[in-house]
């Protein structure tokens, strides 16, 4: 009797497992036919970055998802939002789910997803510069106030020069205005740069361009995150720290000096199968605060 029971339990469990995978594989066959049908009554898949991320911080502030309650700023992002801590997962999720919405740095935007216009303005470097596309954030570098590394100083001068800012704009970011031509002192030595993974790609290009101007210098780029970048700049393991957000007061009070080296736009992305082209700030906000749960509620 016992054996029969055991076999019965096992077979039920096995059947359950088979049923789930069976349903799954069955429906992929129909996926191709349903891909073209857009059903706006389906739930929106809201994808957001993790709490504390520079991209998320800028996004919630600019779209008004952050509200002030009793003097405290409260992040009103809906609890139902899927959270990821990587840009590639964000892009893969939105590219694979017709009803998804997410946001990425303009420099990371690729062909697999569609960036929507916000209040009629397309997410391009020109529109951010002219101010018609309002969703942007600063890229900061931070150094200690008493920095005594000639290479690091010279490199910062390079970044803040015409040559350096050209690299910034070539990579899809928005350069800083009012810069002069670069006058290098050709120091030799080594500087360590580290921090935000959002800034790292453009910093790598800047370092390459700088090495052509000054072959004496050795630059080492380490990628981690904004907070590590700042704490390491304070304790001296990085000469230059990178942060894709504004510096916090507690970081500034530890003797850090911030310089904005570029501005980055944040693109709101949807799946390519999504017919939505243009959204208002209010509509994006209503999705991220959880007021609108399906696409037909947004477009109404």
């Amino acid at each position: 009797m016992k054996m029969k029971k055991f076999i019965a339990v096992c077979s039920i469990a096995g059947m359950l497992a088979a049923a789930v995978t069976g349903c799954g594989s069955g429906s992929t066959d129909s996926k191709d036919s349903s891909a073209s049908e857009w059903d706006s009554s389906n739930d929106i898949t809201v994808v957001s970055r993790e709490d504390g991320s520079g991209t998320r911080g800028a996004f919630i502030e600019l779209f008004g998802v952050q509200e002030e309650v009793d003097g405290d700023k409260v992040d009103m992002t809906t609890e139902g939002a899927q959270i990821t801590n990587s840009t590639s997962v964000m892009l893969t999720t939105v590219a694979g789910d017709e009803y998804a919405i997410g946001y990425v740095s303009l420099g990371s935007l690729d062909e697999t997803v569609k960036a929507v216009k916000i209040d009629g303005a397309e997410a391009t470097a020109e529109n951010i510069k002219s101010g018609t596309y309002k969703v942007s954030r600063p890229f900061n570098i931070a150094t200690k106030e008493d920095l005594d590394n000639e290479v690091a100083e010279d490199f910062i001068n390079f970044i803040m020069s015409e040559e350096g800012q050209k690299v910034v704009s070539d990579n899809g970011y928005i350069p800083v205005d009012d810069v002069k031509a670069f006058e290098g002192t050709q120091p030799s030595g080594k500087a360590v740069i580290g921090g935000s993974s959002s800034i790292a790609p453009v910093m790598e290009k800047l370092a390459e361009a700088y090495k052509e101007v000054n072959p004496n210098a050795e630059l080492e780029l380490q990628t981690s995150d904004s907070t590590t970048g700042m704490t390491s700049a304070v304790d001296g393991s990085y000469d230059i720290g990178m942060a894709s957000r504004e510096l916090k007061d507690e970081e500034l009070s530890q003797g850090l000096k911030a310089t904005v080296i570029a501005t980055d736009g944040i693109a709101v992305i949807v799946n390519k199968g999504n017919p939505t082209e243009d959204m208002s700030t209010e509509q994006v906000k209503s999705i991220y605060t959880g007021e609108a749960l399906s696409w037909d509620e947004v477009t109404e």
Partner: protein
Amino acid sequence: MKSKAWTEKFMQGVFFIAACASVLAVALICVFLFANGVPAMKEIGFVEFITGKMWKPNNDLYGIFPMIIGSLYVTAGAIVFGVPIGILTSVFMAMYCPKAIYKPLKAATELLAGIPSVVYGFFGLVVLVPWIREFGRTLKQAGITDSSGNGSGILTASLLLGMMILPTIIGTTESAIRAVPEHYYEGALALGATHERSIFTIVIPAAKSGVIAGIVLGIGRAVGETMAVIMVAGNQTWIPESLLKGVRTLTANIVIEMGYATGLHREALIATGVVLFVFILIINFSVALLKRRSEHE
């Protein structure tokens, strides 16, 4: 003779130091975790930290109850999918398998253990998530559920974890079954039991403690798994209402937010690590208990 005694002593010392390294590592991790995590727990309030349902670090709300529930749900799901398949596979490998199939089968299960978890995660993200999403939407259209979910959630994470714990369960269970003395099985046959009956009523009950140890080790792996789960679980900090909804596990909570956390937020994440550590301690303790019991039998 004298020099020999000296080298003997010396090498003994070397072995002793090597043995101490792992103990020291565990001790250091313990000290680090508790020294950093416990003050944060005190500051937040121990009860609020464990039972609080709101996790909003920006507003100083640190409740990890949703994450504890998340870890439990996902692990339970992994057991539901992984244990039956794992046990039946090991029974097949130990008692039924023709020699020609055995080698490739064994190699395949071992390879399964060697795949990096981020690869599992990417597989889940690209293959499993769309399946479950379509499954959820079909269910919603049929009116069975109110919300379809979006593919990332408990069900997806459970399926993936179930797959990931297979090698642990298969390996331990197979060796447990093989360790049962041959005459148990032969005795059952001699008494007139069929092949199946001998296996399921004599051999497996005799290997019980090894099988359970395998399951518990699998649970340990499932609780501790991070990368793969982050990519397919959705990571919402709520208590999910259905299997299709997203969850965040304890491990995911730490990894996702560690990069940007400062101050109390960072300490709260380390305190999450303390809770996780206690979970793992309980699991290891129960494995030790099972082993001791099996030795007595």
